């Protein structure tokens, strides 16, 4: 460990003098003011319940080793994963899109690219996310509604028609059925003659946070984690620039968790994935450089920045100290960020633009690698084109007009931000030790331990909004009489399911049934042997016209399905 250094006051005499001065100030100026006018509250806390002081001084970070703060692009990466950050290239402006069929979403992609978006991100409909074909009874009413419907390779081809996948990085936001989508993406790339090693992009494929928070799961935990492992090892060998997992705190937050739950539980999930992959004999340095992350940027401005700085530092220490990484690339945490959808309101919905801008500002001050800013209409429905344009313009204003991109980690050295970063690091490691002591992440998911924490914090948040302790403009304060300006919400095209199902049925009719049956048998064999990688057979299947439902239903018969005992 690094030896604590007196920072930045120099000698311990200076520090003693400073501490004395703070006491003196409290006793005199502060006390005199409070006698005249009480402070608004007896104690102040962050949104995540960390107590905060009246102000912070050098004495508050005196015990922080200078090396823990460090420099951008250097261990422990507190100040950013890269040495030049936005001075070289702004974060990727990556607005998520998805609705209708592949053709429908392709149009939105083309629109966003034309508006200056620099990366693509794909939202899938519920049946695709849950592994059902569009003509399955469970899919009724849901086809193409909240995302794009993908059943077969033909849908994937329509989705990315005319988009150069070697030039555009593409994020696929999907989890339990992710590996099938990845297989389709690979076959699409092969058919177009791309070099797989040149594809940059990300697939979320983070199943553990699904059991904790987002609740999109199909199979029991063990085979699901095995699939994640297989994606990671496959990509490490065949797609060197591709991120095979996006370990996500965002959904932990949206499901009700506090900022500390978000980052600590995300790192608990990371530990499981790294352990599973290293069990195959792969060294951490062979795959860790492509692990990627996804966090929310919520409304408590400085707390969020401290949280994101702390998670970078904790990750670096975990990868180095717990997993023996030697390559700095294995220790550099890179993350996508999204503003907090749960902070958006229906009343006075235009105010959502302001909320989102402030959250986006914090995300960029914290050094995110890519960013999605939410639409002002997302308390109504999935966003319209106009709402997404406003969101993209918000990012462009920050990037082009504010000059915050010129200096890296401009809040580094702020007594408050550094002290809160330290608090977060300390608490993250406490929670991780607690998880280990209680038997590990998977056992605690099965026990509902994480889910209980999220439910409790969600409930407390609701009570705090009701009491007014947590102000929300337009909801519990600054209410307006009368109605808001009319809003145009995203329409659902009722012809979507028919158009989608017609294509899926055509693919089924056109495939070679003998070859298809042989490949399904091979899939069963691979699934039963967890030492094998499921990616190669899945790639063959989708190339041969298998639907997502064909693959998932076959595996359900072997692995079974997961049902949780709800905790509330």
């Amino acid at each position, binding site marked *: 460990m690094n030896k604590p250094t007196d920072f930045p006051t120099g000698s311990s005499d200076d520090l003693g003098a400073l501490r004395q001065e703070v006491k003196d100030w409290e006793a005199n100026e502060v006390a005199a003011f409070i006698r005249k006018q009480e402070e608004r509250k007896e104690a102040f806390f962050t949104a995540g319940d960390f107590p905060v002081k009246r102000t912070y001084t050098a004495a508050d970070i005196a015990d922080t080793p200078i090396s823990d703060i460090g420099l951008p692009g250097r261990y422990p990466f507190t100040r950013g994963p890269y040495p030049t950050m936005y001075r070289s290239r702004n974060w990727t402006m990556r607005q998520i899109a998805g609705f209708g069929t592949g053709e429908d979403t392709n149009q939105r992609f083309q629109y966003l690219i034309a508006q200056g978006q620099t990366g693509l991100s794909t939202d899938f409909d519920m049946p695709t996310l849950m592994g059902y074909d569009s003509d399955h009874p469970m899919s009724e009413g*849901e086809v193409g509604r909240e995302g794009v419907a993908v059943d077969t390779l033909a849908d994937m081809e329509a989705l990315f028609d005319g988009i150069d996948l070697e030039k555009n990085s593409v994020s696929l936001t999907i989890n339990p059925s992710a590996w099938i989508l990845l297989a389709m993406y690979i076959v699409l790339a092969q058919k177009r003659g791309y070099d797989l090693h040149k594809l940059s992009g990300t697939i979320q494929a983070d199943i553990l946070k699904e059991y904790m928070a987002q609740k999109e799961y199909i199979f029991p935990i063990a085979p699901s984690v095995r699939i994640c492992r297989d994606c990671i090892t496959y990509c490490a060998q065949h797609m060197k620039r591709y991120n095979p997992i996006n370990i996500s705190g965002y959904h932990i937050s949206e499901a009700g968790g506090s900022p500390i739950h978000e980052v600590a539980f995300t790192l608990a999930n990371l530990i499981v994935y790294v352990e599973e992959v290293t069990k195959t004999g792969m060294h951490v340095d062979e795959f860790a450089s492509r692990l990627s992350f996804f966090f929310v940027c919520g409304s408590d401005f400085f707390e969020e920045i401290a949280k994101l700085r702390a998670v970078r530092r904790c990750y670096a220490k975990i990868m180095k100290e717990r997993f023996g990484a030697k390559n700095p690339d294995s220790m550099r945490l890179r993350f996508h960020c999204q503003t907090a959808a749960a902070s958006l309101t229906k009343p006075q919905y235009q105010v959502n633009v302001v909320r989102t801008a402030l959250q986006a500002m914090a995300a960029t001050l914290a050094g995110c690698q890519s960013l999605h800013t939410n639409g002002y209409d997302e308390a109504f*429905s999935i966003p319209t084109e106009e709402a997404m344009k406003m969101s993209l313009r918000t990012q462009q204003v920050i990037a082009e007009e504010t000059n915050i991109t010129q200096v890296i980690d401009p809040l580094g050295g702020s007594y408050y931000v550094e002290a809160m970063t330290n608090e977060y690091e300390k608490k993250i490691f406490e929670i991780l030790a607690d998880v280990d002591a209680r038997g590990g992440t998977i056992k605690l998911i099965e026990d509902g331990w994480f889910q209980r924490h999220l439910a409790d914090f969600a409930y407390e948040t*609701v009570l705090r909004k*009701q009491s007014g302790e947590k102000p929300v403009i337009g909801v519990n304060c600054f209410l307006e009489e009368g109605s808001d300006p009319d809003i145009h919400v995203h329409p659902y095209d009722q012809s979507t399911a028919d158009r989608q199902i017609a294509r899926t049925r055509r693919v089924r009719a056109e495939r070679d049934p003998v070859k298809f049956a042989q490949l399904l048998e091979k899939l069963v064999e691979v699934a039963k042997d967890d030492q094998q990688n499921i990616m190669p057979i899945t790639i063959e299947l989708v190339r041969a016209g298998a639907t997502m439902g064909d693959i998932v239903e076959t595996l359900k018969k072997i692995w079974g399905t997961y049902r949780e005992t709800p905790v509330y």
Partner: protein
Amino acid sequence: MEPIRVLLAKVGLDGHDRGVKVVARTLRDAGMDVIYSGLHRTPAEVVTAAVQEDVDVLGVSLLSGVQLTVFPKIFALLEEHGARDMIVIAGGVMPDEDVVELKKMGVAEVLLQDTTPDKIVATLKRLVTERGAR
């Protein structure tokens, strides 16, 4: 007086359960008998459970936009079970025009995001009082 009996349900593929669990806890803390179905239920499973448990109120939470597909099925199934008098409420995120449609269909109240716990409890009590004794 007997406690109000409530079945809260998630129907379809939607996994958003933050809101429904807050409502479950709110109603439980208010002294009601609350059953929560868990995720990914079909309308038939939900209505069968509601009838078997003889609940006063059936609440369905949806954040997946499928309200205009799900609620007609629920009402048809209630009709089949001779339980058309059961109080049905909706919760979640949905556009205003869908709220209007749901009310026309017979949904007694739609509790959107940011409805306070006190309001939720008061709404259910009012609906049960208005219905009168069974």
